[in-house]
């Protein structure tokens, strides 16, 4: 996609000729900025409106502080190190839970997708668990595991497990049976078929699960940190609000958004590497 974007203006400029190089470069620059504007215009407009509204007093700046105040709080928290400890503990919680969910859900999903008996036996209880909100179960986990790290990591793990598991199962089951038959014709045994046809065929769907799982993990991270934590980004959002440090609250929210974007981009990048054959990585 980026390649096309680079190529198009150059390609067009080639055959209308006659123009000086200067005007050509100018037009290229114009096109580039037009493209940036069409993609980020609304976002920039939103931020500008926010800044103007907050600094000119249209809205209460104590509730919606201007952008520069938020950036300053963010800078202070990161450069001064005040928020680094919170980021570290949050990453640890979400990372541990996500890794555990991956380790459990992907192998289990692969087995459930392949072996009908396992799926039949586990499906009802998994449906029940899945339909029960993880947040509703959080108090139960606190009772069982205490108010420390274990219950937080567990509730994030719990919620992350299901999107991963379900997408892995459907990835395995949706592998084209015609491809399985083709492999069988060449004498492939069950394990070979699994390794060479089922597994690669399920990868795109597993990535859908990973991306959904990452989003869920961050969501549950915040929720769990808002209850009974004394450190973490979610705690900072809540705590800053209690203490009326509104720019700091927004700074913590910005960090959360950034974590989500980074996690998603990392997974998209990984998927692009693993699924170069597919044109549908987006």
């Amino acid at each position, binding site marked *: 996609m980026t390649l096309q974007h680079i190529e198009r203006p150059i390609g067009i400029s080639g055959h209308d000729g006659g123009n000086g190089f200067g005007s050509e470069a100018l037009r290229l620059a114009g096109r580039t900025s037009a493209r940036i504007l069409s993609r980020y215009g609304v976002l920039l407009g939103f931020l500008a409106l926010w800044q103007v509204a907050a600094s000119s007093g249209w809205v209460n700046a104590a509730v919606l502080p201007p952008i520069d105040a938020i950036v300053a709080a963010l800078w202070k928290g990161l450069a001064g190190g005040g928020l680094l400890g919170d980021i570290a503990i949050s990453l640890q919680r979400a990372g541990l839970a996500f890794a555990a969910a991956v380790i459990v859900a992907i192998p289990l999903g692969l087995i459930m997708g392949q072996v009908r008996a396992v799926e039949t036996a586990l499906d009802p209880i998994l449906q029940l668990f899945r339909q029960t909100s993880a947040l509703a179960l959080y108090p139960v986990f606190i009772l069982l595991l205490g108010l420390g790290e274990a219950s937080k990591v567990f509730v994030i793990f719990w919620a992350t497990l299901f999107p991963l598991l379900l997408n892995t199962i459907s990835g395995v089951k949706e592998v084209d049976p015609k*491809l399985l038959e083709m492999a069988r*014709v*060449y004498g492939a045994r069950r394990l*070979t078929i699994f390794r060479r046809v089922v597994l*690669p065929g399920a990868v795109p769907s597993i990535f859908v699960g990973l991306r959904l799982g990452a989003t869920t993990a961050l969501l549950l991270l915040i929720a769990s940190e808002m209850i009974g934590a004394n450190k973490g980004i979610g705690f900072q959002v809540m705590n800053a609000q209690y203490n009326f440090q509104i720019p700091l609250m927004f700074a913590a929210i910005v960090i959360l958004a950034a974590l989500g974007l980074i996690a998603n981009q990392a997974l998209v990048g990984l998927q692009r590497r693993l699924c170069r054959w*597919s044109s549908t990585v987006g």
Partner: protein
Amino acid sequence: MASARGGEVTIRDLSKSFSLGGRQLAVLRSLNLDIRSGECLVIVGASGSGKTTLLRILAGLERADGGAVAIDGREIEGVGEERAVIFQEPRLLPWLTVLGNVAFGLEVRGVPKADAEKRARFYIALVGLAEFGDAYPRQLSGGMAQRVGIARALTVQPEILLLDEPLGALDAMTKISMQEELARIWNEENVTMVVVTHDLEEAIYLADRVLILPKEKGGAARLIEIDLPRPRDRSESRFVRYREELLREFGLH
């Protein structure tokens, strides 16, 4: 030379029926047939006459209800290394390149990757795709993808090549050039070929013999020998007469 390779198929009393909405529907009724080593046998018949079922039984993908199929005197049990199948769809693995797909059959059979790829390259060139070894299936046209499927089947060097409406999904122009290609490959590879098609012209173009499967109960399968020199000329008067004969068999002329 042809007979030295084997690939002789003996079909005895073969029958198969499906249950459809509670009714038993017989598609094959004690069929007897000998397919000669190295010949090209084309199976035609109205839809529902069981031609694809017959091919799938020969491939070992389906079991007959009664009767037996033997290859070079040995009764078949499921799929076997002496057979390869070309389906109507290319059935390529989208995550493998053309080279990877063509080498797949050999690799599955335990041939080391380097050897498998070496032989795969030969057959990729044979179907005219030498420059496309690194391409992925989604980048190929329908005709090219089907060539890859054909190359994959040839790479395992089967004695018997089973083709289930191999050109059925291609446009008319591609189809004609692929028919010529199949005839050439059959000629060069010295393989027994069994082709299912519903295209009568394709049948006459490729076949040593055409097997016509009956649709009605009690009808008998009929074999027509196509006695024409190769490569065949579609506009030749005898070619046209064979076509009329086949059309008559279907009650269309």
